[in-house]
């Protein structure tokens, strides 16, 4: 694939911001537009851009892409854990803590609630799955051309 220096420069410059935007969308999910799913896709788009601009070899040298499926699995397990851990305390599944009406712990303007942990699980799963698919497809394409 032929890419110009400018494409590569823009791609490299956009990588960190796309992760930053994803992080913002993720942690602000409960207060503002966006959630774990959107954050996952945004971050994955950033990675996809690297593949387009630099090719598979360079992109995978730059980023630890091979852990993507593991991240997806970890995300699923995290979501499952947050969802069903309340059963151990005798509460219904998907009970989030702190319970409704009680004041959560604040870190700056950030509120710590278990629902956000669930959203982080969604983020990891979506991000990992999309990046995994990108990687598999890139690999298969390379194999076909070779």
């Amino acid at each position, binding site marked *: 694939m032929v890419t110009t220096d400018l494409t590569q420069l823009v791609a490299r410059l956009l990588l960190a911001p796309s992760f930053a935007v994803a992080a913002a969308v993720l942690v602000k*999910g*409960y*207060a*503002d*537009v*966006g*959630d*774990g*799913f*959107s954050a996952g*896709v*945004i971050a*994955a*788009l950033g990675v*996809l851009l690297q593949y387009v601009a630099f090719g598979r070899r360079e992109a995978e040298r730059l980023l630890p892409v*091979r*852990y993507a*499926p*593991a991240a*997806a*699995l970890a*995300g*699923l397990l995290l*979501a*499952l854990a947050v*969802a069903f851990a309340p059963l151990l305390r005798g509460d219904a*599944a*998907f009970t*989030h803590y*702190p319970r*409704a*009406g009680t004041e*959560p712990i604040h870190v700056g303007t950030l*509120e710590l*609630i278990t*629902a*956000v942990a*669930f*959203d982080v*699980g*969604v983020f990891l*799963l*979506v991000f*990992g*799955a*999309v990046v*995994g*698919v*990108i990687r*598999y*497809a*890139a*690999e*298969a*394409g390379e194999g*076909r051309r070779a």
Partner: protein
Amino acid sequence: MRTLREGWLAYAGAAAAGAGLVATGLLAGAELDVAWAPTLGARLAFALDGIGVLYAGLATGIGAVVLVYAARYVPLHLDHQGRPRREATRLYAFLLLFMVSMVGLVTAQDLLLLFVFWDLTAVASYFLIAFDRHERNARYAALMALLVTAITAVFLLVAAVLLHHEYGTFSLPELFAVAEPGPTVTTAAVLIALAALAKSAQVPFHFWLPRAMAAPTPVSAYLHSAAMVAAGVFLLARTYPLLEQSRLLLDGLLVVGMLSMAVGGVLALTRDELKQVLANSTIAQYGYVTFMLGIGGASGVAAASFYVLAHALMKSALFLAAGAVSETTGETRLSRLGGLGRDRPLLAAGTGLAAAGLGALPFTAGFFKDELFFAAALERGPAFGAVAVASAALTLAYAGRFWLGIFTGRARGERRRVPALLVWPTVLLGALVLVGGVAVEPLARLANAAASVSFGATIDSIPSYHLDLRAENAMALATYAAGIALLVTSRLWSPFAEAAARVGERVGPERWYDLALLGLNQLSDLIHDVEVRDLRTRVAAVLVPAGVLVALGTVATPAAYELGTVGRGDVALVLVLAVAAVAAVATTLPRHHLTLVLILSTLGFSLAVAYAFFGAPDVALVAVLVETIFALLFLGVFALMPRLVLRREAALPTRPNRRWRDPLVAAVAGFFAFVVVWGALSRPAPEESVAAEHTRLAPEAHGSDVVTVILADFRGLDTLGEITVVAVALVGIAALLRRGRLW
């Protein structure tokens, strides 16, 4: 030592079964009742009452004997077939699963629980019958046994639901207390009886049992003598208080029992394979039990109960003997066997006792089973007494034919050495038959305890020998005379019996089963062909019926549909939607895949804009992101495909029949989807909708973005399901592109 290591599961299982037998004796009367699914009214209710003790005792006692036998038999069986010996563990495991389900079944006091264990036994029996899975016969037989017993099991479930609907409980003791004669109870009782008759291989469901002889011998000895087929008559005994509400149903059982005695008896006389003789004999023997339950009353129920116990001992002994005989001689057919008695006296003695018991000779437990049987039949009427004598004579004839054919006459077949453990179980069970014939009281007490539970009143008559010419003794003498006459004159009647068997094969229920299976397969193929031949027919199969249903709804109730107006503020939205509509139509035009992808994403993006206009920024954001990544992934996937294929596909002309069909399907579905959406959105929103409630509750759940709160909290379980799909998709793509290696 080696066999101990290989068969550890069998020996451990046998020990556990032996312990279970002892526990059954010690814990008689114990009860366990735990809530299971309170909202359904289902309880984990078990009780070791008379019926439970009888059948659980048979399941564990004979199970222990069979497992010990299997530990020596199955490795030999596998050696003959050149299969590794470790596969035996599978058989032991399923035998144990079967045993546990059987014990659960016979102690369950709740109809739902009963149904669960009922199906568990069917599942375990499937794997046991299909143990020789490389043989087509075994697979066919296993599927047949599963279908016949599991489809009819649904009747049991329906009956449970019917009774629950009427009386509000699944608990059997409660049902017995409140059930009164009436259409509901009769219907439920008929359904239960159908399930039971199929399980006990009674006419017209009997055909699966001879087929199931494709199973290894220990499986037949267990399932087809003391356990699986016994489960059917167990169910009849367990639900007897419901069955006896309808005299007509009991008469039906009487007829089915007689038919089964006749069919099984005649077939058993014609068969040449040892196990086929025994299988058909089992049909006839459980026919006796069904017959006696149909007679009903204290004597009928008590006789049935004793019959089950005596028959299980004898029949499992005979099956085990059949296995030992074929291992010794290498033959499985009566016509190629003979004279084994001189070389294997111990086996001949054990088998002889069991066969004598089946033929109801004196000094065996079998004598009493027929004494009770004759008494019960006579109570109903002299004609039934005659039927009883005739079928007992048949039994004596095939029991005699079986034993005489193997152990007397000219010596035929090989004389291989077999492990002693293949012979001793038969001898042990045969000895029990003898002991039961001398001191019948313990067996009779067990049977009476079970019969008392069925009958609902204490039954304590103990049969004994009488040296006078009472009716039962006269009938027994007539039976012996007729049975011996049948044996002596076999040349005369065997052509007729063979002809009857052939007619049964030609037009019997097995043929209906095959035809029904074939018909269902063809129907399924037909529907498959119509619906899923290609993607278009598949989509059309959903869209056209949906469109037609909506059309019917609109035409039938025009008043329910309101046509809203388009205000000035909606102009922008309408414009965006018009763009989307144009894009949607445009997707049908391009021939090149790349263009198609781009138009599809145009459609997606215009819908995203529509969401933004609707004031749904979350949805709009997700739509934009999804469209972006999907368009890119689509392009990536097309890059994977060979150019040539893409070009060839693009050049294919549209088939003529599609030129009109596809637009028509699209128009019908699209128009009526538009009508229903337009109508639904035109209605004024209800005051307190789910959406309004979610919006109200969101701040309390620490969120101000209601969409995220719904996803992570209110509807979290849905989200969990959806993200699981994403993970499964990832695994699927890995399977397609890199043989399942995730990393």
